[in-house]
């Protein structure tokens, strides 16, 4: 397994084509706005070598028998699924942000099953290709960006009817040695911290859309790929000299639009090619795993609850009964998020391929909670923190020779707590609820792994209402069907 330093060095060897604020980024690893996100991914490497975390962060490869990073592991038991949930919570609490590596893991697990099933129906050899690729990823301990979401254009139209055919990524040319693809993938978490990019279709498809039913993997710096970094709230604070106003001084996340401008993909990297009837299965299986992965928000919630309790103490308000009750409510909601992820893991099952899949219904229930509870947890954090969180002067004012003394004086809370500490804690709460980390904690909680309505549709499909009606009728004595 790589160390964090080896991971960082491996990123420096990539030749990524990245744009931010209209300019090409010449040094992605050290860019001050991107660097915190690299640190977060690096934590997944660092923790694998720490005795107090390795039981969650590492696993035994079912291919080689070697110890590997769990982010490159294919789940072989419900214990594996539970450990994945716990790993996501752990890393959320250690980084306080989106640590980006889960999407690739979820993509590989979904592909391990879908490739197997395509082969069973069509006699193809996708699974063999996929397992060779997986072994490569495991042996080299790589970060993979799992890229599903197309820009989609007019949501009322299927891919082949879009005015611009590139609104969904598709094949434009077929050659003896591979294919050429064109399109883009939006909202790609951690894209420029990744060694590989794994493409999947974003929706179930019909035969008319078969040119869009493709899945493949490429090196992230393959020719023709361009990354356009997404802006985040308060992002430029990371390029300021001071650190207080960043809130989270160590870690962050990022997302990017990834453009494929006639990119060549060799056949041995293709895991689905026009088997349109399996696009929906790949999407659903990936989505189930990825909805489970939002246990990470319980970890970020741990940070926010800790910050909120601390600011209550710094403010001198921790004994107020309503403050105590709000902290209880935050914990209740946070642990409920964890409950959902643990439940879908514990209730997982083995698929034909041998891979263990989470319980899809419970995974969707888990994610539906995630679309709501962080917002309430954040609201309670802001309630307890107070309005100062959004009116606080800058670190420069704190350090100012002219006005620093007033910032120090008037923003002191508990007299034993340095004003700077109070400011730091307020900025952390701001970061998670309004700033760069709010991208991950709130809006990504809403839309990541599918928007709320997507889960409601799945819940509706998977619930057996007839059975529920049957038990109700029996208990009230209705005997006619």
């Amino acid at each position: 397994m790589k160390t964090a330093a080896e991971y960082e060095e491996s990123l420096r060897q990539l030749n990524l084509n990245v744009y931010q604020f209209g300019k090409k980024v010449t040094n992605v690893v050290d860019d001050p706005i991107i660097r915190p996100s690299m640190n977060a991914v690096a934590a997944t490497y660092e923790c694998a070598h720490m005795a107090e975390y390795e039981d969650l962060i590492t696993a035994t490869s079912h291919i080689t028998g070697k110890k590997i990073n769990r982010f490159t592991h294919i789940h072989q038991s419900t214990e594996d699924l539970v450990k994945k949930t716990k790993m996501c919570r752990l890393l959320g609490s250690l980084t306080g942000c989106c640590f980006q590596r889960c999407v690739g893991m979820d993509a590989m697990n979904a592909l391990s099953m879908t490739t197997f099933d395509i082969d069973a129906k069509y006699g193809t050899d996708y699974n063999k290709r996929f397992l060779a690729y997986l072994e490569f990823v495991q042996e080299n301990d790589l970060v993979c960006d799992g890229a599903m979401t197309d820009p989609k254009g007019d949501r009322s139209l299927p891919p082949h009817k879009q005015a611009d055919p590139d609104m969904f990524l598709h094949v434009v040319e077929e050659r003896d040695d591979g294919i050429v693809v064109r399109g883009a993938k939006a909202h790609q978490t951690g894209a420029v911290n990744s060694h590989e990019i794994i493409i999947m279709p974003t929706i179930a498809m019909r035969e008319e859309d078969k040119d869009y039913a493709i899945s493949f993997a490429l090196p992230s710096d393959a020719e023709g790929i361009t990354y356009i970094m997404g802006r985040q709230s308060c992002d430029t604070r990371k390029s300021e000299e001071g650190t207080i106003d960043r809130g989270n001084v160590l870690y962050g996340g990022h997302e990017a639009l990834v453009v494929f401008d006639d990119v060549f993909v060799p056949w041995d990297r293709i895991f689905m090619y026009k088997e349109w009837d399996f696009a929906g299965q790949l999407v659903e299986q990936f989505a189930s795993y990825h909805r489970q992965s939002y246990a990470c928000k319980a970890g970020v919630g741990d940070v926010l609850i800790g910050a909120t309790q601390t600011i209550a103490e710094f403010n001198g308000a921790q004994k107020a009964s309503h403050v105590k009750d709000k902290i209880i409510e935050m914990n209740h909601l946070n642990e409920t998020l964890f409950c959902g992820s643990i439940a879908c893991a514990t209730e997982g099952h083995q698929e034909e391929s041998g891979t263990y899949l989470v319980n899809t219904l419970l995974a969707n229930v888990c994610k539906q909670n995630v679309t709501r509870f962080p917002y309430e947890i954040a609201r309670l954090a802001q309630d307890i923190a107070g309005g100062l969180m959004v009116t606080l002067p800058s670190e420069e004012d704190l350090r100012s020779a002219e006005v620093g003394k007033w910032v120090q004086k008037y923003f002191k809370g508990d007299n034993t707590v340095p004003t700077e500490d109070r400011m730091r804690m307020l900025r952390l709460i701001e970061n998670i609820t309004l700033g760069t980390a709010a991208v991950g904690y709130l809006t990504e909680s809403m839309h990541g792994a599918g928007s709320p309505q997507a889960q409601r549709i799945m819940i509706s499909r998977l619930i057996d209402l007839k059975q529920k009606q049957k038990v109700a009728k029996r208990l009230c004595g209705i005997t006619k069907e």
Partner: protein
Amino acid sequence: MTRLAPGRAWRIGLKYCGGCAPRYDRVEQVGVLKKMLAEAVILLSYEAENLDAVLIVAGCPTSCADTATFEPLPILRIRSEADARLFIDDMRANPYRDLTGSPLLVAKLF
């Protein structure tokens, strides 16, 4: 070996759970154990050779750390600060005890 020869310290492999939501500081407790049992116990990596037992340091009662590969060694388990104190007190009172009789032994159900 589950009984200690005089003049020798127990060689115990240390395995943490993954620490997703620990209820106490596991690393700090291990530090306390090392200090309080310095003469009776040598805590090593669970991958070390010639271990007498394995000590699981779990952050909560669930204790989900993998232990299957450690058999047939005695597996001792700490799940709280109270367990840690019990381990220290027991080893100090009975340094030559049979480890399979330790109050922290993980009992197997057959």
